[in-house]
């Protein structure tokens, strides 16, 4: 199929636009007729018919780049735009960024040619569609799993290069010269003694007459690393477009929109998941000056949310008022009048202290097979004298982004407009659409309905005041939508308090890990791991649909974990032990469970990283040396041969995908991302070097100072961390130094990579030292930063040293946002032992050692 017919076919098939068009095509109608002046100035003329990423304002020449991912501190807004601008040879001072609304169909990336081959997972899921996607529409804006740069680096480059190539070809027409004489540099194309600006109407006119360049030509036109400007900070630091606004208080976050006639709502929610409202009395709340209305959030026909109800919120009663203070006061007056109904609610018996024992019991017996070596592990492999056993526990944790959830919604004439900070704009849009169209929360939607929802729900994206996984869930946006629908024509801003945030998170899973190994002489000969954790999929789907959903998400029928969670540090456990057995044991959900920065890697890495150190001590070996021995010689993990049926490699292929393109040319379309322990070894060796491990271990031996080490692969990147701690005469713990090394492929924006790794150290220390959510009678016991403390500046190590591994510049980038977290807890626990402290096998550590509070 040619380009044109394929696109026509797409429209006919109702799939819509969104194809990656590499070139520049500007219809004269668009340029001189249909577009109004304000639209031109703000949005420019799209470069490429179906290209939503970049447009140009004629004459002025401003390049308008649409940033479509959620910006929550990773700097991705600037980084992806700068990649595109770099390939285009745009002058950054003439680039303007606009934040996309929810419009996932626009940001899908298709294969730029017909694909006949059977593609390996994960693409098989998209095979039922009539087109094959590199990035499917659904999820194209979903900013999770540290995937933005991994997924969009090459597409953004191709876009930029395609526009540049088309501009060079158009310049050849303008000056009647050969295209080989035309070269773009900093917003101009030079041809001999002539030059033409990107905004010049002659250039745009000729560009509009050219067809799309072929994929192979664009691929060939990609800049060589030596010509990069911003990418990898080759010649200039990557721009940070929002920095100045951020330090002057100018940016718009979720709570900062002002709409005429806007009211503020606060909700008193049932503290127990799936609980109901028995009764309440609105009189006192309504008597508070400024309170306008008191109303139930959920419609009467909808069972309250919690566990197994998708993202439907907990039952709640809203107080709607003129301003935040009146809403707060009204809610205080309302609170004592509410009687909740939890008579038939099993969640009301949930007690996290008891549940810890339940999890422990779960790992006491055989679970579902996750992975095993050919030589099976049996009881005979463990000799009591040589056996090392340990259990590791990580409680529920709350993400606690600095900006509490907030959403503004306006319902008018059957459509709804939302302003909300969300990591998942298209997911939130679809969830609100279900509310509007009265579709059951767990029902599957057909493409037509999804399209209709995109038409009737508009979602605007501000900057996010942190996300860490909390804002991947749209519950608070759904609440705002329910309230807006009850108050047509009135913009409602739903403001969560910090108490709401701590008490109604989607908590990171509580988990228990049972580890057992046999150490003969110095060698670990057999290893058993049993992991029990409360899967997010138990929160999302009703038990009646567990089986169907398990098929979709790769094994593990609830109450077992999903394929996504098992792939995060369990299936891909890196140690090369002769006999290995890994199992997943069941755990049920009684409160909402979601994802926190690094997700299941957090508890898997804590157990595995700590246990490696315990084995080293049993063997009487240096911890770093023994860690390298456990990892063994560098190898590609061959998971299928060890009974891992479907390893979800952060949803990216393990092997390189090469395909024939436009005739007989074969091109690499997707780089492979195999779990490869060569890289893990390399980061361990590097962190040993930068921390002067050997010298310092010798130096601190026998003192109250010590080093701990841990290494982990997550989101396709490899990290190793050394933490240096000491105890003073009062037995108080001080963290002196943290050294962390990351191999994230090409560091596209080295400064933000460093910033993310520094932040991950702080986030990881926060969780390890202080993190704990407990539950009694189904209700969370913590409220605010006084009883859910997080790390503060005086508790932060004075030296956090980040090293980025040097790689070949053609290496594709891998994840960064979450990858720095998992090694922190185990490295810290190991360091505490090295400094003469206790072996800590549970979070939070402050219960076992004295931490500066």
């Amino acid at each position: 199929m040619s380009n044109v017919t394929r696109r026509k076919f797409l429209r006919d098939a109702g799939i819509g636009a969104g194809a990656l068009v590499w070139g520049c095509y500007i219809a004269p109608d668009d340029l001189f007729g249909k577009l109004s002046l304000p639209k031109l100035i703000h949005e420019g003329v799209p470069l490429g018919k179906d290209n939503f990423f970049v447009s140009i304002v004629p004459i002025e020449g401003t390049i308008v780049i649409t940033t479509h991912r959620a910006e929550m501190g990773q700097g991705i807004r600037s980084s992806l735009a700068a990649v595109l601008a770099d390939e285009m040879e745009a002058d950054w001072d003439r680039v303007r960024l606009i934040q996309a609304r929810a419009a996932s169909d626009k940001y899908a990336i298709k294969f730029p040619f017909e694909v006949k081959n059977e593609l390996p997972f994960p693409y098989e899921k998209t095979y039922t569609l009539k087109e094959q996607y590199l990035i499917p529409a659904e999820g194209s804006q979903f900013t999770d799993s540290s995937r933005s740069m991994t997924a969009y680096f090459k597409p953004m480059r191709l876009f930029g290069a395609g526009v540049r190539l088309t501009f060079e070809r158009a310049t050849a027409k303008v000056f009647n010269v050969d295209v080989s004489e035309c070269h773009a540099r900093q917003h101009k194309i030079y041809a001999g003694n002539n030059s033409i600006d990107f905004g010049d109407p002659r250039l745009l006119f000729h560009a509009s007459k050219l067809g799309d360049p072929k994929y192979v030509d664009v691929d060939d036109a990609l800049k060589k690393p030596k010509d990069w400007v911003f990418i990898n900070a080759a010649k200039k630091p990557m721009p940070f477009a929002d920095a100045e606004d951020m330090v002057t208080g100018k940016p718009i976050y979720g709570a900062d929109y002002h709409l005429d006639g806007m009211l503020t709502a606060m909700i008193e929610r049932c503290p127990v998941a799936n609980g109901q409202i028995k009764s309440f009395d609105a009189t006192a709340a309504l008597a508070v000056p400024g309170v306008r209305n008191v109303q139930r959030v959920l419609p009467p026909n909808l069972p309250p949310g919690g566990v197994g109800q998708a993202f439907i919120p907990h039952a709640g009663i809203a107080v709607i008022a003129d301003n935040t203070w009146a809403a707060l006061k009204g809610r205080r007056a309302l609170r004592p009048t509410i009687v909740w109904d939890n008579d038939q609610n099993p969640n009301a018996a949930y007690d996290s202290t008891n549940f810890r024992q339940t999890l422990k019991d779960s790992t006491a017996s055989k679970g579902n097979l996750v992975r095993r070596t050919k030589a099976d592990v049996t009881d005979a492999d463990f000799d009591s004298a040589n056996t090392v056993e340990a259990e590791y526990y990580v409680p529920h944790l709350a993400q606690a982004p600095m900006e509490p959830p907030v959403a503004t919604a306006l319902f008018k004439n059957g459509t709804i407009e939302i302003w909300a900070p969300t990591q998942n704009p298209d997911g939130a849009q679809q969830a609100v659409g279900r509310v509007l169209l009265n579709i059951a929360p767990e029902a599957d939607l057909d493409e037509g309905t999804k399209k209709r929802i995109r038409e009737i729900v508009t979602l605007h994206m501000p900057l996010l005041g942190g996300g860490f996984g909390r804002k991947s869930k749209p519950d608070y946006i759904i609440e705002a939508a329910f309230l807006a629908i009850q108050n047509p024509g009135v913009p409602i801003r739903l403001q969560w308090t910090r108490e709401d945030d701590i008490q109604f998170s989607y908590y990171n899973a509580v988990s228990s890990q049972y580890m057992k190994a046999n150490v003969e002489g110095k060698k670990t000969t057999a290893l058993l791991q049993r992991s029990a954790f409360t899967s997010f999929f138990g929160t999302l789907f009703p038990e009646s649909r567990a089986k169907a959903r398990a098929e979709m998400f790769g094994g593990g029928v609830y109450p077992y974990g999903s394929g996504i969670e098992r792939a995060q540090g369990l299936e891909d456990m890196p140690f090369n032990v002769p006999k290995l057995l890994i199992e997943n044991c069941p755990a049920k959900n009684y409160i909402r469970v979601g994802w926190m920065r690094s997700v299941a890697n957090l508890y898997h890495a804590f157990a595995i990283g700590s246990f490696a150190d315990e084995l080293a001590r049993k063997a009487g070996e240096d911890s770093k040396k023994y860690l390298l021995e456990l990892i063994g010689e560098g190898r590609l993990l061959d998971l299928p041969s060890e009974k891992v049926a479907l390893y979800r490699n952060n949803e990216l292929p393990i092997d390189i995908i090469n395909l024939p393109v436009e005739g007989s040319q074969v091109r690499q379309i997707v780089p492979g991302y195999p779990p490869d322990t060569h890289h893990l070894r390399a980061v361990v060796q590097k962190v040993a070097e930068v921390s002067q491990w050997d010298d310092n271990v010798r130096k601190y031996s026998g003192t109250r100072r010590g080093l701990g080490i841990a290494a982990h692969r997550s989101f396709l990147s490899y990290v190793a961390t050394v933490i240096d701690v000491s105890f003073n005469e009062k037995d108080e713990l001080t963290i002196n130094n943290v050294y962390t090394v990351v191999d994230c492929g090409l560091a596209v924006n080295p400064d933000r990579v460093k910033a993310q790794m520094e932040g991950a150290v702080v986030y990881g220390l926060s969780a390890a030292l202080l993190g704990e959510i407990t539950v009694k009678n189904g209700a969370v016991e913590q409220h605010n930063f006084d009883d859910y403390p997080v790390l503060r500046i005086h508790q932060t190590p004075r030296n956090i040293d980040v090293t980025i591994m040097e790689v070949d510049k053609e290496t594709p980038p891998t994840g960064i946002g979450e990858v720095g977290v998992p090694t922190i807890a185990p490295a810290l626990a190991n360091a505490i032992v090295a400094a003469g402290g206790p072996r800590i096998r549970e979070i939070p550590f402050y219960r076992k050692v004295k931490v500066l509070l």
Partner: protein
Amino acid sequence: MPIFQLNVNGKRHTVNVDGNMPLLWAIRDVLGLKGTKFGCGVAQCGACTVHLDGRAVRSCSVDVGAAQLSNITTIEGLSYDGGELHPCQKAWIELGVPQCGFCQPGQIMSAAALLKAHPHPDDTQIDDAMRGNICRCGTYPRIRAAIHKAAGDRT
């Protein structure tokens, strides 16, 4: 409801609100200055930090009535809008301190007050002045470096 005079960023405002309304909500909801952030409401996180006569205070925990005789400065007034940036703001940009940016107005207001009291703070003084400001992105190492830089000291 009572009427209060508020002197914010050198401008006089008259607000007609509940006298127990925290200053934070008067600044945000009534005056429409959105740079001051709500993070916890109980003086635990520092996102709402403003200056009251040059001192850093948590505006979520000061009643509007108690603020009416003071000169209030918010992040919008720190650089005298449109004028030169405060040395902290410059240092914050140069060292790439912000990540999500949400807590940074509060961090900068605390840091600016610290530098006024101690033009060359040591690390302990920084800890004492800044421990009331939480940053979940974990920008603390760069905040420390930026304060030293703004003070013209080592970074």
